[in-house]
């Protein structure tokens, strides 16, 4: 029988904290696998039989948590976990690292959301199983990015040579940070960052990822200025939970509202994405426009999470046996 420290040394699990933890080739493979699952879901319904997902949400979430849990159930596995930090031992003062180490004795993979940035890296210090970052504060959200990428691929037929606009809260918008990171690795990209001055893209992304990639980008306060040139428009919500000051949130929350009047100037094959939940930033009238792709992202997200969990748990594709 092994001690816990021996188990930790032997386990050496592969984690996904950031979209950069996956290579472009791996992302392509995950998209292919997700498409295969979408096409023949019955073939995958027992792939993870006997496996358990630890669904550890220290911060409330509806769609991401349910998407992960549905993904594991659709692979034939089971789910255990908690939906808020109130129901975890952290309320008793337990460290995140201890909580994760304990849970990793019971499950085969962990999906974790936490309000603090970098929490998954801290959690992984003593963890026996793979951790997937399901969102850490305003930092990263790699599985949302996988859902975004498959949706862009489906709409545009490619992930390169695109002009992509990001609009809204670019400071705290973790989905924006992850997607910018991912798209910078493709050829021929152009970016437009549309935000009020207080919610601009963080310097580490501009000075690090964007500068290194060499892709041209512009920052503007006007959605009307750039919308005619865009292939993809990624809208985001101004997130109340990221503000220390309520007055700042109220002042900034309705800066951008995408409606049919603004879309009048956009390309006919524009794809409008949004990580959801939406508040006011996309008018409901846009939902029926064929350019609206945000509910497709939700649909695709579950299949990408199924593909990612299969990969990290080392489960074979039954259609490739």
């Amino acid at each position, binding site marked *: 029988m092994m001690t816990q420290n021996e188990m930790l040394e032997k386990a050496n699990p592969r984690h996904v904290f950031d979209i950069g933890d996956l290579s472009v080739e791996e992302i392509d493979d995950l998209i292919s696998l997700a498409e295969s699952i979408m096409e023949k879901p019955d073939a995958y319904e027992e792939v993870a039989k006997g496996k358990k997902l630890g669904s550890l949400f220290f911060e409330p979430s509806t769609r991401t948590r349910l998407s992960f849990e549905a993904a594991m159930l659709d692979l034939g596995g089971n789910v255990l976990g908690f939906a808020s930090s109130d129901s975890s031992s952290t309320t008793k003062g337990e460290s995140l690292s201890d909580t994760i180490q304990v849970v990793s004795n019971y499950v085969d993979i962990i999906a974790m959301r936490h309000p603090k940035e970098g929490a998954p890296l*801290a959690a992984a210090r003593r963890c026996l199983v793979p951790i997937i970052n399901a969102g850490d504060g305003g930092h990263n959200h790699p599985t949302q990015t996988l859902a975004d990428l498959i949706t862009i691929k489906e709409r545009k037929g490619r992930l390169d040579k695109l002009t992509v606009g990001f609009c809204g809260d670019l400071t705290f918008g973790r989905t924006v940070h992850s997607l910018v990171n991912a798209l910078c690795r493709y050829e021929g990209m152009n970016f437009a960052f549309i935000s009020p001055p207080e919610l601009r893209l963080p310097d580490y992304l501009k000075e690090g990822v964007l500068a290194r990639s060499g892709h041209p980008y512009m920052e503007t306060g006007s959605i009307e200025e750039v919308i005619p040139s865009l292939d993809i428009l990624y809208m985001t919500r101004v997130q109340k939970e990221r503000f220390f000051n309520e007055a700042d949130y109220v002042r900034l929350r309705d800066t951008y509202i995408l409606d049919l009047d603004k879309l009048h100037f956009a390309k006919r094959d524009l794809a409008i994405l949004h990580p959801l939940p939406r508040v006011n930033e996309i008018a409901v009238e846009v939902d029926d426009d064929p350019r609206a792709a945000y509910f497709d992202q939700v649909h695709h997200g579950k299949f990408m999470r199924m593909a990612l969990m299969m990969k990290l748990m080392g489960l074979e594709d039954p259609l490739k046996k």
Partner: protein
Amino acid sequence: MDVSKIEEGLVLDHIKAGMALKIYESLKLDLLDCPLAILTNVDSKLMGKKDILKIGALVPIDLAVLGFWDEHMTLNIIRDGEVAEKVQLEKPSEIRGLLECKNPRCITGQERAIESIFYLADREKDTYRCAYCDSMWEK
């Protein structure tokens, strides 16, 4: 002001004026019980003003910490009253346990017993990036 020569020990020379105390604290030199001199604002032909730190014993010293604060300072190892070796410093690509992340949303501000880790982000601008939250750290 004169400080006498040391027979055996370390001399940190050409420290940017005003930085010696920072280095003293970062290296936890207050824990040493050997003679130690901190000279600040010393006239220098090369730098105008500089700081000097003299440690009267051959103690282990974290070169990454020195390189982080100033890769251009010189570290002389003194034996028998003479400079026996000059150590070339370089900016470390990674620095652990020295800095505190300034991002209030970073997990390092909450989790117990977590060692801070920063990676060199830009050699020219001398900026480091928190391994946990990616926030930049500037001197």
